[in-house]
């Protein structure tokens, strides 16, 4: 059997130099590499510190939604969902993309007014979000305890994916288009050389690149720091669980605004659920992926209260992954302050996976054609020099 390393390889030879080196073989880095290879002849190398799907791209809940509170985020997610529709065919892999919608529920007056404001914004932009009463919500999720629901918002075009094949699909197509994907190789430091950067690798090798894309999210800090770049994004542990598989019984991903609980049914049949943990603390720049009993207990109590029938459902596994949290909740994308050869694509605050199809494309268009997507202005990594910027988005969940 011939070895076709379409999932990257720890053995593939690196060239001494390339045009673009992408640090981080998650969905963001691989989508960017794929789109660069598709639209140019630039020589691209992706460096992944472990194996593909080992990081946040392999640990998230796979939710994809256009129900955001800010117009820019709604629009970019409309782009992303539009790309997702044709992506399985484009990448030649089953992404298990299922548009069962997202159902947001409000249990307080404040939550209710957020949903009303969002629905108005979505209508103006053309996103098909509908407001529902508790009874109407129960038609979509029959097991929901609607006594607690003041108002719900439903968008049938939102959905869930299985995250792993997304990563493999982008990797496989990028490799077919000539991108080198090297796994088990970390970029530990960089130094300026000519107009570009020289990367020092954990294997003892080095690689010169005209442009380096830091797509390593929660792990991005050390590489930035080696160049004297201080950015405020920090890893934040987020836990999640999955249950024994059931026959299809839950169409949408459900979000409870008040508790930050979300749950959906994967195409494998499991219920996948996460929640905002009260009193979670800062761990500095260290990535903490431990699991806790507190999470199981808190999630169990909240979920069973909202969907009593799930009480008899068994949890099979729990795990954790890092959100790469930016202080204003906005991503950090574009040339780094003082080091224009280093592009950031970090700080997505738990929502990078769903945005990656659109962001990978727009970042490639910036690298290849110098096209500036409107979101690049507000995602500018230089914005923190002027002090903290205000939060625009209040629909960050988890």
């Amino acid at each position, binding site marked *: 059997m011939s070895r076709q390393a379409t999932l990257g390889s720890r053995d593939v030879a690196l060239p001494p130099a390339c045009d673009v080196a992408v640090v981080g073989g998650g969905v963001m880095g691989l989508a960017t590499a794929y789109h660069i290879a598709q639209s140019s002849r630039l020589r691209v190398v992706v460096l992944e510190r472990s194996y593909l799907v080992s990081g946040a791209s392999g640990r998230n809940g796979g939710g994809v939604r256009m129900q955001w509170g800010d117009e820019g985020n709604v629009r970019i997610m409309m782009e992303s969902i539009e790309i997702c529709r044709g992506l399985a065919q484009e990448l030649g892999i089953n992404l298990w993309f299922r548009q069962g919608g997202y159902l947001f529920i409000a249990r307080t007056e404040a939550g209710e007014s957020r949903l009303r404001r969002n629905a108005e914004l979505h209508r103006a932009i053309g996103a098909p979000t509908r407001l529902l009463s508790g009874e109407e919500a129960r038609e979509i999720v029959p097991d929901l305890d609607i006594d607690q629901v003041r108002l719900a918002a439903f968008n049938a075009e939102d959905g869930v994916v299985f995250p*792993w094949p997304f990563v493999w699909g982008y990797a496989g197509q990028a490799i077919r288009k000539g991108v080198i994907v090297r796994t088990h190789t970390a970029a530990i430091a960089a130094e300026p050389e000519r107009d570009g950067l020289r990367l020092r690798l954990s294997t003892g090798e080095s690689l010169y690149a005209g442009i380096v894309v830091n797509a390593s999210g929660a792990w991005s800090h050390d590489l930035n720091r080696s160049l004297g770049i201080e950015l405020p994004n920090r890893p934040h542990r987020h836990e999640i669980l999955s249950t024994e598989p059931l026959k299809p019984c839950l169409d949408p991903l459900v979000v409870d605004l008040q508790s930050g609980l979300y749950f959906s049914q994967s195409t494998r049949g499991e219920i996948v659920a996460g929640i905002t943990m009260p009193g979670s603390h800062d761990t500095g720049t260290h990535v903490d992926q431990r699991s806790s009993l507190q999470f199981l*207990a808190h999630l169990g109590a909240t979920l069973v209260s909202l969907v009593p029938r799930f009480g008899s459902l068994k949890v099979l596994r729990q795990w954790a992954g890092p959100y790469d949290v930016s202080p204003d909740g906005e991503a950090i994308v574009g040339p780094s302050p003082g080091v224009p050869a280093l592009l950031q694509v970090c700080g997505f605050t738990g929502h990078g996976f769903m945005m990656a199809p659109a962001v990978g494309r727009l970042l490639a268009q910036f690298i290849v054609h110098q096209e500036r997507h409107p979101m690049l202005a507000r995602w500018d990594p230089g914005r923190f020099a002027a002090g903290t910027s205000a939060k625009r988005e209040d629909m960050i969940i988890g």
Partner: protein
Amino acid sequence: MTQRIFVCRCEDVTVAEIDHAIALGLASVEEIKRYTGLGTGPCQGKECTVALVRLLLDRGTIGADAVQPFTARPPAEPVTLAALSSLATKAQAQDEP
């Protein structure tokens, strides 16, 4: 024949599927778990991990000194959400300094 030999009986992963993963360049228990879903069912790898390791050693993808099981995911055995939710008060109490 290898299409009918099951290594992971919870998730129906066969020897042929593992050979396919190896052909794609995957070498370790953790990587093959991710690609095939082996060990992610009700037994959480208790039945299949050793069988997979024997296969990987046999195929020469990994040396015996480098063998590592995949990260064990709690709970140790399946637990109902109702039982977990009854822990909520207790767990919060333990969290107090």
